[in-house]
């Protein structure tokens, strides 16, 4: 049981032989009880204000509760945030381009491809096997499955995509 200023107080109760129950009051009135069972299943009970009988009950098995937790915890990507990013980049775009297995450019170096000369866009990093190679040198060899981080105007990025 933990209470921080301005935070919603959650009451934790151990139910012997059953699991753990958390009770959270709702600002709109009433409260929500979440029951965690040792077998991984979860139950959510909704109590209306001044009622000690739940008006609704939802049961989740292991992966359903995981999925619900993901949904509830997912950050909201709102439209203003995206346009702010564009503004901050001054009209530039950053694109992720992945090389397919049979791509004609595999085995060639960045120097041979001459991306900057041909399009004006820069390769600022190569992502390979979950590792990033920042600021790749001109003699970096491109492999199938690599992801290139391309920065440039919308038009320039598009041209890079065409070259690949």
């Amino acid at each position, binding site marked *: 049981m933990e209470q921080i200023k301005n935070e919603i107080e959650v009451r934790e*109760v*151990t*139910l*012997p*032989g*059953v699991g753990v*129950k958390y009770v959270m009051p709702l600002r709109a009135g009433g409260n929500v*009880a979440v*029951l965690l069972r040792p077998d991984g299943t979860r*139950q959510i*009970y909704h109590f209306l204000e001044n009622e*000690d*009988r*739940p008006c609704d*009950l939802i049961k989740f098995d292991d992966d359903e509760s995981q999925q619900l937790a993901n949904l509830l915890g997912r950050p909201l990507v709102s439209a203003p945030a995206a346009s702010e990013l564009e503004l901050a980049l001054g009209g530039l775009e950053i694109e992720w381009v992945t090389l397919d297995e049979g791509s004609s450019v595999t085995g060639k170096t960045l120097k041979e491809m001459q991306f900057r000369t041909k399009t004006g866009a820069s390769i600022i990093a190569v992502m390979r096997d979950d590792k990033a190679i920042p600021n790749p040198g001109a003699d970096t060899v491109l492999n199938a499955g690599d992801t290139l981080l391309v920065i440039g105007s919308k038009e320039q990025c598009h041209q890079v995509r065409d070259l690949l």
Partner: protein
Amino acid sequence: MSPLLELGAIALGLYLAGWLAQKLGLSSIIGYMLLGLLLGPYGFYTLYEATAITGMLGELGILMLLFYMGLEFSPQRFLEGGRATTRAGLLDLLNFPAGFLIGMLLGFGWLASLFLGGIVYISSSGVITKLLIERNLIAYPEAERSLGVLVFEDLAMVFVLGGLGLITSGGGLLDFAGVALFFVLYLLLMRYGRAQLERLLSREGEALVLLALALVILFSVGAKSLGFPEAVAAFLLGMMVAESHFKERIIETLTPWRDVAAAVFFLDFGLHVDVLGALGQIPAALLLIAVTIVVNLATGFWAGRLTGLSPRSSVGHGLMLIPRGEFSLVIVGLATTVSSIPQNIRDNLAGMTSLYVIALVILGSVIFRYYDAITQVLSAPFISREAQEAERQRQQELEAMTLD
């Protein structure tokens, strides 16, 4: 019948009885016990008599039930319940004198009556917890209180068993010396044996099962030879093992063993009950059932109101604690081995308790099925009075405001 064939028959019989009971929505305890009642030497078909196998596995069943009780008992959880649980638990204790008085009334004598007090006192945490989950009542406020009381009962049960064990062992000077010796050994083991126990228990699979069985049996039998009640010894061992890091693994690995041994215990108990004699105990059992219902409703309601539950939840708190089961049978099982209680009274006690437990398990499943309707009806008189009072208060407030 060869012992091996007998074991096979027991396994098949228990499986079928448990399956049938579950099919009827009842605890499998009832199925196991009824199988014993119907097939035993006193039953309708004498298929086989209570044998060395059922007797031995049954005894192991008692030890395992108590060992698990200790394993799952957490002093911290007990304290967490706080004052509300303690108050409710103390009121719930009134079931004990109620059972004792009925025993005296029926002329059982004080010793058998003490056992009856224990039988009536202890609710079935197994049956109640299962019904609470099945019927989706687990999030109700009174379920929290009831589960707390069940933990309280577990602790009280240890004192009941300990007290009864000491009384029936004779209580001579030598016995007390033995009990004291056991306690000293236990405390020394708690204090200095932890690391060794921890190392000992870091096993898996059959090694863990064999080791745990050996520990439970030898520790309890050893305690008994010192004059200490073996059931309580099993509980104390469980509490000690609960401190180890391997608690969860032990619970996981041993649960089927406990359940099988307990099933045989219920069967063995049933085999020893004189069925026709038990039918003669119907009036006494009905009295016991009625008193249990009344006492639980009264003390439950009182405890609920005292600890801040609504009238409806308070009625429910009493209702939830009505089912009796495994531990009532454990206590009556111990009573049937006490030679200082006359044989006919032991028989009556066994017959009466079997009827009592069967009836309350069935009643419990009915109560939990119609729980909302029952609590609404029973709490109606209390609610209307409260609602009236609240209404009157609101009227007065309104008048005061208009006067301003």
